């Protein structure tokens, strides 16, 4: 590949552009007067998708340690995570605009399909705010445990997705690959530990 082309596709701006693509059509439609309600679901779906992809990369690399694609994607994991947060923010904003009344929002807050979404979003905020080099340096060894809050956020997202429409299929289609990979990762880690302990004894 031509070197200019290569640096173009490798630039972080290109990654940002690709991650922003799904939002462009939606924003154009909203500006042209399409009802916001139509885009509550897709914005949430893309938030979940990007979060799931970001979370899948480490266990995928355990499965395919030589894969250049996965290594490249890993170098874009922060962008994926921040994009997930951006879509989640628009998702929340569209929901609030569509409801149009604080009273209505509070009335349904404690429904299982709703509070789980709010709590997932609340977790996303500190994760996104610390997704930069300055915060990595500042938080030192606390950074990783903080970012691991993405696991409870993912569980909340899954529950939110299932219960907000009582529809289990689409949520599972998205989450089953991640659940499978995480199970593999746990299995591998447990095995590694038992190998290590038998070696030391």
């Amino acid at each position, binding site marked *: 590949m031509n070197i200019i082309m290569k640096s173009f596709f490798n630039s972080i701006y290109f990654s940002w552009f690709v991650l922003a693509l799904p939002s462009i059509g939606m924003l154009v439609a909203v500006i042209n007067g399409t009802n916001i309600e139509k885009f509550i679901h897709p914005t949430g779906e893309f938030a979940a998708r990007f979060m799931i992809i970001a979370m899948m990369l480490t266990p995928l690399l355990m499965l395919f340690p030589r894969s250049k694609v996965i290594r490249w994607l890993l170098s874009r994991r922060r962008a994926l995570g921040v994009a997930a947060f951006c879509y989640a923010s628009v998702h929340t904003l569209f929901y609030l605009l569509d409801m149009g009344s604080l009273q209505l929002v509070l009335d349904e807050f404690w*429904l299982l399909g709703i509070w789980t979404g709010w709590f997932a979003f609340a977790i996303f905020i500190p994760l996104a705010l610390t997704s930069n080099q300055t915060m990595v340096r500042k938080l030192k060894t606390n950074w990783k445990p903080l970012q691991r809050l993405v696991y409870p956020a993912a569980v909340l997202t899954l529950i939110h997705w299932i219960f907000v429409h009582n529809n289990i299929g689409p949520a599972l289609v998205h989450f089953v690959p991640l659940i499978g990979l995480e199970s593999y990762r746990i299995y591998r880690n447990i095995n590694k530990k038992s190998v290590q302990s038998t070696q030391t004894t």
Partner: protein
Amino acid sequence: MKKHNLLFTSILIMSLSSAVNATGRMTCDSGDQDSWKTMDQLQSVIESEGWKVRKIKVDGGCYEVYGSTPEGKRVEAYFDPLTLEKLLVAQRGKILFKK
């Protein structure tokens, strides 16, 4: 970390199994669409009861209405297209009414 994973997995399995029970997709044995009442008829009937209608579509042989109840709750509701009888009302997945 192992303990946490176990906890999350068990929460996940619990919520999934309850979700399977809760899934309340409605189907109607309503036959040919020619004998159905129209969406406009449904809309005017429930609007006169105080509902706000945002969208009506056909789902599982039923009319599915997106809108608000007379109490102002944002819901999805299913109606029989032959009789316009109310079958199911769910607010963000919580079933408020089921025939």
